[in-house]
């Protein structure tokens, strides 16, 4: 037991180190490459500024006679520059540092230029990082662009350095944490080991001891229960053998009376107790190992990028001095540089980290920007430090002063910290899922099976056997119990054969029925656990969300077969198709699950999902993307909802809230991982390859499901229960159902679809937040969801009524959105995201649980398929309609009004739900 637990821990810590190390290197490379691009963007920007007067006249850049000299300046500013090209809007190179001049730029560069939202953009090739800057005419039309490429050597070197450091640090952390885990587990598992070894001793004697010690803890209690069951099972077996051995086939009195019903829920608690004991250590091992490596990564990444930040500031100095020197060499007097302050002022708007630029001779000749208080500035950037001399005829006649904004630099490092935190978080989430699976498969599941088998035999049921598993003592006991089942069957068969016709069939059948063997030999015991699907569900959700961040851009970049369609509409179509597919597929999920079982369904829906992602990989037109993405919507709806149904089915009505909460945690954990990693993976692997990665992850999750899910799990006998669309509205006749749908489910759906997926990003963008900031703010919502999901379940388990929890969650979410109406600033919106995330997490499990209660009670006639199908369809229909309505309000009255509408909707909904549910539902 100790070794297996330790092995599982060691594997998981290894997974943490490898995954975090790899993701950290990818993240580092993404940051570094971005900084490199930003640095050389200073050069492309200054070249563009040179072209600007010509372009503003409406002349093509190709008409500039000294264009080649202009691009050659790139080399003067940084000798390491690869190639600088100026090309027109059709990609023809008109000026270049290269001789002979290349005829045109690559189609990828041209594509990037046309797709860029702003004037600055970039891309990468195998060997170069390319920074591009579009040249716009005064009317905003893009007429040309400048690209400056930089060899990737620096990036590769920095990346290898980080990789080496990660590998060494990860290996050492792995060794250390694994060793610590061993000792911790040794202490923690000492009790359980003794208890189970005690069972082993009983097993070896083939006779369970009647006097197993009773301790005070839950574990001891469960062990003693198991022990009692084992004793009873032995007694039953002995009695059976005895009676089958005798001529009299009447049942021995002993076992007839002792058939005590064993609640299968109760028997699971030994595994539960053990898992509960291991969970904190597992969580600690994962969090600690991830945090240590995360902190090391942070330190190393900061060290790695620091020179890049300094190099960019230095380059700004070079550019300023170069530009001023050119003007002076042309014959302009230093103290009469007409329009230079505006020129540098414009330049600074694109260089957020440079607060102030000046040219000084001892006094300031010209300046732009705001000076930084010298006491705030870092010492080496203290004002009036001569950075770049301006020479005239070999003599220094002036110098450049640059003030770097320390707040900006601090923000840059904070961004790195937050980026790394997200990576650490995702690693922790995934590692935890792996840990849960490994612990369950290697330890708790076999213990659970033993408990169940013992309980069955204790009640005289010999219909099951079990695969022994690996844990020696437990395996021994299980083998013994399984052998008894087989033995009972064999003996029974012998009796039947030897009895011939002399014994009444009815009596024999009764005997078989009594042992649970009327349908043939004992069958393997199969138990469905939620843990069986957790990792598969997590990976599946992550795979589905990975392309989300770049899908609109990817659609825009592809060929459009419908030129009459507006581009903004076109790029929303993959999402629209996806949502519609979910809307239409949702009601069928439960029916399909009951018909085929989750395992078959996972595979059946997984294969077209893989095909759809491969289709997306090869897609060349927007229409293909729309088609394939719509197909993934069908798969997503069926698989996630079938998983939810599986959870509902494996749960008991007592622990349903808690399990649904955990389901939310796992599903949204996967969503969060996908959303958080999609961007960085697309940046480092290429957008197209992310689709392949998604296909791969879906393949892995389908395999995991085939391997782990018990065949037929989820399938139900009452196959007559089918969903039909006409039945969607039927349950609404029940006021409580209506209150849940309109008061909780739809408002929370609107929060997710309209607020989180649409309004929040646009509003934050409006407030000037960067894409990365927006991404992180949205992450906060999902974090709220995954944090609150299990808490909701715990609250319910602790006896808090589910109805009020859901209503309060809904109220809190609505109220948090009102904040922004009162203070229309970023923090208010971010708070709204966090609070509504928590609200969503609490309400999500609660609404399903409430509806299931209704389906088992007041709406029993309709059946769970119809009721759940109705909830899901109405929720999604409401969300989509809400999204359209909110978009319309935003278009007509602005984002604040739209946010107000979402808030009002949620609050009114919650009030409605409160009046109906709290008054009448005995929760």
């Amino acid at each position, binding site marked *: 037991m100790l070794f297996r637990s330790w092995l599982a821990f060691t594997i998981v810590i290894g997974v943490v180190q490898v995954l975090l190390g790899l993701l950290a290197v990818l993240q580092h490379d993404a940051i570094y490459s971005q900084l490199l691009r930003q640095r050389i963007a200073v050069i492309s920007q200054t070249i563009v*500024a*040179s*072209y*600007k*007067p*010509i372009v*503003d*006249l*409406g*002349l093509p850049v*190709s*008409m*500039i*006679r*000294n264009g080649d000299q*202009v691009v050659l300046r790139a080399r003067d500013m940084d000798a390491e520059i690869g190639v600088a090209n100026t090309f027109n809007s059709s990609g023809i190179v008109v000026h270049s540092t290269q001789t002979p001049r290349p005829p045109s730029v690559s189609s990828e560069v041209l594509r990037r230029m046309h797709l860029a939202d702003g004037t600055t953009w970039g891309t990468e090739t195998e060997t170069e990082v390319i920074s591009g800057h579009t040249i716009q005419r005064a009317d905003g039309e893009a007429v040309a662009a400048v690209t400056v490429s930089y060899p990737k050597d620096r990036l590769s070197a920095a990346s290898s350095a980080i990789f080496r450091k990660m590998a060494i640090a990860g290996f050492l952390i792995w060794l250390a944490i694994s060793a610590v885990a061993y000792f911790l587990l040794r202490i923690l598992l000492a009790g359980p080991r003794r208890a189970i070894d005690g069972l082993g001793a009983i097993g070896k004697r083939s006779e369970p001891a009647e006097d197993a010690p009773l301790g005070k803890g839950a574990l001891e209690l469960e062990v003693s229960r198991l022990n009692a069951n084992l004793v009873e099972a032995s007694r039953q077996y002995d009695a059976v053998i005895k009676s089958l051995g005798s001529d009299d086939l009447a049942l021995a009195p002993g076992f007839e009376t002792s058939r005590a019903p064993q609640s299968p829920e109760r028997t699971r608690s030994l595994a539960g107790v053990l898992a509960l004991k291991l969970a904190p250590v597992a969580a600690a091992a994962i969090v600690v190992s991830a945090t240590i490596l995360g902190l090391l990564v942070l330190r190393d990444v900061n060290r790695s990028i620091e020179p890049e930040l300094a190099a960019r500031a230095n380059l700004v100095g070079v550019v300023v001095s170069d*530009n001023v020197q*050119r*003007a002076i*060499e*042309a*014959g*302009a*007097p230093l103290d*009469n*540089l*007409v*329009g*230079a302050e*505006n*020129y540098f002022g414009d330049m600074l708007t694109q260089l957020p980290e440079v607060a102030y630029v000046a040219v000084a001779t001892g006094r300031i000749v010209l300046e732009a920007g705001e000076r930084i208080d010298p006491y705030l500035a870092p010492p080496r950037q203290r004002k009036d430090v001569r950075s770049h001399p301006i020479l005239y005829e070999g003599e220094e006649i002036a110098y450049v002063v640059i003030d770097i904004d320390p707040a900006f630099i601090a923000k840059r490092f904070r961004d790195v910290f937050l980026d790394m935190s997200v990576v650490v978080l995702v690693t922790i989430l995934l590692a935890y899922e792996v840990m849960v699976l490994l612990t369950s498969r290697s330890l708790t599941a076999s213990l659970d099976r033993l408990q169940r088998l013992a309980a069955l035999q204790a009640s005289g049921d010999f219909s099951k056997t079990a695969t022994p598993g690996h844990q020696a003592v437990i395996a021994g006991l299980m083998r013994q119990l399984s052998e008894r089942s087989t033995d009972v069957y064999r003996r029974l068969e012998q009796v039947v054969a030897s009895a011939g016709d002399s014994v009444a069939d009815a009596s024999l059948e009764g005997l078989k029925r009594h042992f649970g063997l009327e349908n043939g030999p004992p069958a393997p015991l199969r138990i469905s656990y939620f843990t069986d699907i957790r990792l598969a569900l997590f990976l599946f959700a992550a795979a589905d969300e990975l392309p989300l961040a770049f899908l609109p851009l990817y659609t825009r970049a592809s060929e459009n077969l419908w030129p009459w369609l507006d581009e903004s509409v076109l790029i929303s179509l993959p999402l629209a198709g996806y949502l519609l597919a979910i809307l239409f597929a949702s009601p069928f999920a439960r029916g399909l699950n009951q018909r085929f079982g989750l395992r078959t369904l996972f595979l059946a829906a997984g294969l077209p999902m893989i095909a759809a992602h491969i289709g997306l990989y090869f897609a060349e037109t927007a229409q293909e993307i729309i088609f394939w993405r719509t197909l993934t919507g069908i798969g997503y709806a069926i698989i996630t909802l079938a998983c939810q149904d599986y959870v509902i089915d494996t749960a008991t009505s007592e622990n349903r809230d808690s399990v649904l909460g955990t389901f939310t945690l796992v599903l949204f954990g996967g969503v969060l991982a996908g959303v958080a990693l999609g961007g960085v993976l697309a940046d480092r692997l290429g957008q197209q390859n992310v689709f392949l990665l998604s296909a791969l992850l879906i393949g892995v999750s389908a395999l995991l499901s085939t391997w782990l899910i018990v065949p037929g799990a989820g399938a139900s006998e009452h196959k007559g229960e089918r969903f039909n669309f006409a039945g969607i509205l039927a349950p609404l006749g029940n006021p409580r159902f209506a209150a849940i749908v309109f008061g909780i489910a739809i408002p929370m759906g609107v929060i997710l679809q309209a607020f989180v997926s649409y309004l929040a990003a646009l509003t934050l963008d409006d407030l000037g937040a960067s894409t990365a900031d927006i991404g992180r703010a949205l992450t906060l919502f999902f974090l709220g969801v995954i944090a609150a999901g299990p808490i909701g379940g715990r609250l319910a388990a602790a006896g808090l009524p589910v109805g009020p929890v859901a209503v309060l969650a809904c109220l809190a979410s609505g109220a948090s959105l009102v904040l922004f109406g009162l203070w229309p600033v970023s923090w208010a919106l971010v708070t709204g995201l966090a609070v509504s995330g928590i609200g969503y997490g609490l309400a999500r499990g609660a609404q399903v649980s409430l509806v299931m209660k209704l389906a088992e009670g007041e709406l029993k006639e309709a059946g769970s398929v119809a009721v759940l199908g109705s909830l899901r369809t109405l929720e999604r229909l409401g969300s989509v309609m809400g999204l359209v309505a909110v978009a319309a309000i935003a278009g007509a009255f602005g984002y604040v009004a739209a946010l107000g509408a979402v808030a009002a909707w949620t609050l009114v909904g919650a009030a409605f739900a409160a009046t109906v549910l709290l008054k009448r539902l005995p929760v």
Partner: protein
Amino acid sequence: MGDSVPGLRSLLLFASMVIAFVPSSFAEDRRTILGIFYEGCEHLCEGFKTAIADSGFPASVVVRDINQDKAQLSAIVAEINETRPDLVLTFGTSVTMGLIGTLEDSRPDRISSNIPVVFTVVADPFGTNIAESFEASGRKNVTGTFNRVPESVNIEVIRQYDPAFSKLGLLYNSNERNSAIKKKELEALAPTLGIELVALELDPGNEGAPDPGTIPERMAELRKKGVEWIYLGSSSYLRKNGDLYTSSAVENGIAIVSPYESLVREKQALLSIAARYYDVGQLAAGQALKILRDGATPGDLPIVRATDFAYVVNMDVARKLDRIPPFAFLQIAEAVTN
């Protein structure tokens, strides 16, 4: 040794035959290009000749300079129709107009329509109806080059340089067709660009070439009318008198913007955005080679545009006028001094 003498002799004989044969074979195929220039063989002419020579194509360029005397043109037409050169190169609107006329006229005093013509430095070949469009001249035997930026660009350049600019001065010579056309064009253009055009006739009432002595007078007059920028272009006469013209402008504190780059480089115009005439000559040579060497029909060739334009600013003049170019300008402009 005795054997080697006849051997050497035969070798020499062979060599002399080769030498004798080569020029005669070239002489047979050598083409003649007749270039008709308005005033001497300058940058464009040099560019043309160099490009033809560099191409290795056997062609002789014969230069005919009319020295601003349009009266000579009819004799030249007659000579061309008689000697039938392989190609005629024309320089400037006046020369081109005199030799081939407009699209519509088919007067007998034009050169024969089966002699290929390449025109250059025609300020507005479409406005003057010398050619139909950039795609093709509209005449089987004619093609050409184009080397100007639109006048609106010249005006915008001033505005970029001097945001307070609102009044453009122009001295024109109504005896010169080009100059008169330019005045009309600017009159129409100025209001659309939100500026006022102050146009003065150089020597009103004089039917012949204007008296250069009127240039300083007119310049002072413009000054009085509050003009700070004048446009100098589309007038061979003014270009010829560029020295006097630009110096008297500077004396009056007036800056000159001109499509004639040489006036900035060599005289005292402040600013020019133009293609180099040398480059235009090379473009014209390209057109000529396409016709003579590659067998293209002139009418099928597009009118090629000069591509390499430059801002040229005379810094000495800028300092004299106390109008230092804007900083952004200096990042792209070619600064020259006299």
